[in-house]
């Protein structure tokens, strides 16, 4: 598989591979970003 075929969205299978790989990075990254935001916000409290 190459980058070109990875982003080839012509079939359902290919679309789902991209959805899984991108979606997992997005979810995990969003959760980490939420933790960082909350961590910084809590520091400001008395």
């Amino acid at each position, binding site marked *: 598989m190459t980058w070109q075929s990875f982003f080839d969205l012509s079939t359902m299978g290919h679309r789902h591979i991209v959805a899984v790989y991108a979606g997992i990075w997005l979810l995990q990254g969003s959760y980490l970003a939420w933790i960082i935001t909350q961590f910084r916000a*809590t520091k400001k409290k008395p």
Partner: protein
Amino acid sequence: MQNIEETPHERPKSFLRTPAFRAVIWLYLAATLAVLAVGFRQAIFLVPTEETMGNVQRVFYYHLPHAILGLIFPYLNLAGSLAFLYWRRRDPLKALSADAFAVAAAEVTVLYVAITLASGMLWAKPVWGIWWAWDARLTTELLLLLLYLSYLLLRRFSPTGQIGALGAVLSIFAAVNVPIIYMSIQWWRTQHPAPVFGPNGGGIDPSLVPAVLWNLAGWALWGFFILGFRFALERRRQLAEQEAAFHAIESSLEIPPTSWKLSQ
């Protein structure tokens, strides 16, 4: 030299606040991202295409690590909950730490189990022709997600003072589901494939193993990183709450004595 009397609430600087510890954390994160990058390259570009399913089988390399880790984090939640129950009368400060660890593990469990279910559905549709089946493995995995969601909701809406104990008791019941999920594909042979690894596993082609191991290692390192960070956040929240309670008590003691005379 610092005058301690002027800053009575300032804590001594622990190792966790030193630059050396921060450097270790950054190194750990860099190593985790490097392992995940190698895992991605293995899974997408290096391992050969599987004969029966074609390229969509590559979902497996992200689905499997999340599924395995989604069955490990509930036991960390259980360990934290049991430690909380043990310490809550003996050592309340240790119990608070155990409770923070339990809630961190529960949240990471929800994340990993939700990803397992979603990636499994995205894999199932092109391969089985259906998004979902009320198969034993899928149903018990969904139950695990619902149990840990209810654990987090229970904590969110419980009365203050009982949150830890109620959550800890629920986590003991939730953890019972984990071995049932693990054994489900051996006890009930339905839609989900038979085990690949383990004593009764069918095994996979050796050329596919590096992608499995790199991604398992990468997502495990990532999972423990966010678990540690979430634990640190929960501890910080607990300390902020303690500090706020302390200030409330302190300010209530500063009421001038004249008000006592007036009420009498």
